[in-house]
């Protein structure tokens, strides 16, 4: 999992409430045996004018010029500004996989659906809850200023504007620790790699046949 400490990036405003995970990544892309490569199909139905199929080269498809991710000034964005109840619906982990694969590192919204919120942390994506008024304010500023950027300061738990204004946010200590250190479950277990090696050495003495397999 990618570490998340401080991140600065272009903000893209997705001005609609209740964006569900079907919208984030439609069902026809779930048959994949991979967990990468979903980026080109992120928001597929909003982003393209035709119906997307798996295994299709999306670079040749007709784009919806009105959709935020297709507007040139938001090119290269890595922070998504969203409305309430973002990520509702199906529990598919493909939704954070798609956002991450596209290049989004953080989503700011007044509220998130539970499962999606959890899935984000497992995949190095930071969901940030700010109050409605702050989010409204951010939408206004993004739309008024081309190239608008924000800085996410995870250790300091604040969204920082260009003028230095800090908008504090809450995040669970344990999750913060995992993100700061880039630790998923595997990463956490690997912190105990020495214990595992010590165990293996002992077992090699006690039960050597378990280490002489595939002969």
């Amino acid at each position, binding site marked *: 999992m990618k570490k998340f400490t401080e991140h600065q990036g272009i903000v893209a405003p997705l001005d609609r409430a209740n964006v569900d995970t079907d919208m984030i990544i439609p069902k026809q892309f779930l048959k994949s045996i991979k967990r990468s490569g979903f980026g080109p199909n992120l928001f597929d139905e909003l982003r393209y004018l035709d119906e997307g199929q798996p295994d299709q080269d999306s670079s040749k498809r007709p784009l919806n010029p009105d959709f935020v991710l297709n507007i040139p000034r938001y090119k290269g964005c890595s922070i998504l500004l969203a409305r309430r109840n973002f990520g509702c619906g199906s529990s598919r982990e493909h939704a954070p996989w798609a956002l991450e694969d596209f290049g989004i590192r953080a989503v700011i919204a007044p509220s998130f659906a539970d499962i999606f919120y959890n899935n984000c942390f497992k995949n190095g994506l930071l969901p940030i809850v700010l109050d409605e008024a702050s989010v409204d304010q951010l939408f206004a500023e993004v739309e008024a200023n081309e190239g608008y950027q924000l800085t996410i300061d995870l250790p300091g738990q604040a969204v920082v504007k260009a003028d230095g204004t800090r908008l504090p946010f809450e995040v669970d200590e344990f999750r913060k620790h995992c993100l700061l250190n880039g630790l998923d479950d595997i990463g956490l277990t690997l912190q105990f790699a020495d*214990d595992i090696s010590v165990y293996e050495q002992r077992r090699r003495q006690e039960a050597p046949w378990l280490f002489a397999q595939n002969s």
Partner: protein
Amino acid sequence: MAGKTLYDKLWDTHLVRANEDGSALIYIDRHLLHEVTSPQAFEGLRLAGRKPWRLDTNLATPDHNVPTTDRSSGVEGIVDPVSRIQVKTLDDNCDAFGIVEFKMNDLRQGIVHVVGPEQGATLPGMTVVCGDSHTATHGAFGALAHGIGTSEVEHVLATQCLITKKMKNMLVRVDGKLGAGVTAKDVVLHVIGVIGTAGGTGCAIEFGGEVIRNLSMEGRMTICNMAIEAGARVGLVAVDQTTIDYVKGRPYAPKADLWEQAVTSWRELVSDEDAYFDQVVVIKGEEIEPQVTWGTSPEMVVAIGGQVPDPAQADDAGKREGIERALKYMGLQPNQSIQSIKLDRVFIGSCTNSRIEDLREAAAVVKGRKVASSVKQAMVVPGSGLVKAQAEAEGLDKVFIEAGLEWREPGCSMCLAMNPDKLEAGEHCASTSNRNFEGRQGFGGRTHLVSPAMAAAAAVAGHFVDVREFAAQ
């Protein structure tokens, strides 16, 4: 202080680290892989730039998606594109990471839970995991074995460990002797009928008692296989001479001095006399009769002489509704006799009952007889290429074919209908598999779980019959 159960001993010897929150890191000795639950795990490793912690503990084989008909055109010949991609992906991943795989046309390929024991890749005292709930099967060897999810498959690949919590201890003791014609499958179906599909939730079930001691390893595997249907992720049988004799000489079993050393250690793999079990269930072997499931859950089971239950007789409203729903799905009437249920198809196979003894049992029943004309299809799907070869060496394939049963290539097949072997809506099937859930063997399909001998007798009669009377005829 009370002694230790077999499960306690296995847990203690594999504990790497106990965490503050009650979870623990346990070490995994054997990781089995198949094509359905592994692709995202390999992808995860790749994305994170990780390598498997220890290659030699992994063993893979495709089983769920493989066709059981002609395979001469190899993986390219798999018609369903999704299945083909999954099988190919397993091949590619195993090649790329250097994991031993018995590929589709390898003689050793088969259902992962048949292949592991057959190769001696499952050994007493091991921890065994696989991205499949029927991993409980391997507990028959006195191994701590259970199913895991895809994210855990990745975790085991990367760390050789699993984060888990200790379960409770439950003992199911089957005393006495089994009557003629009663098999391990009947024992486990009967046990599930008694304790229910949630009876073992949160527990590791150790199966003990004279009946279990007298079973072959294959019978013990059939029983542990269905521990999961009793709600337990783990089933166990203590190690004895039967276990040791079965393992000896298998390709992955220890050799020479290591063998002697291993056997000495394996003899300890029994529960202490004074071990404490949180729950004990005692069953009399003499009371077990051949079983048939009538409903859509493995606990909906009765003896062959019995009847489909009457919802009007149910103790409470919840049970009544459950019975009514199952009867409707299964197209059965209250109080209908089990023997009056007519069959459209018969499936002999799956990780529960596709080993050589199962096939011998079924062949003995159909020998010199014919499948009833009312049965559309009866098929035998051996659990592995080696089981198939053994059966052919014994001439069992001819017995089946002469009786009108199809003789197939190894795989999961109609157990879950992920390949083209499926029931059609409304069809009744006598099946030696382990799950009779709605749609399990095909949309609208109606599954009745039975032993191989009972399935074979049903194929000949066209409806369920008591194999004890049938065999004597």
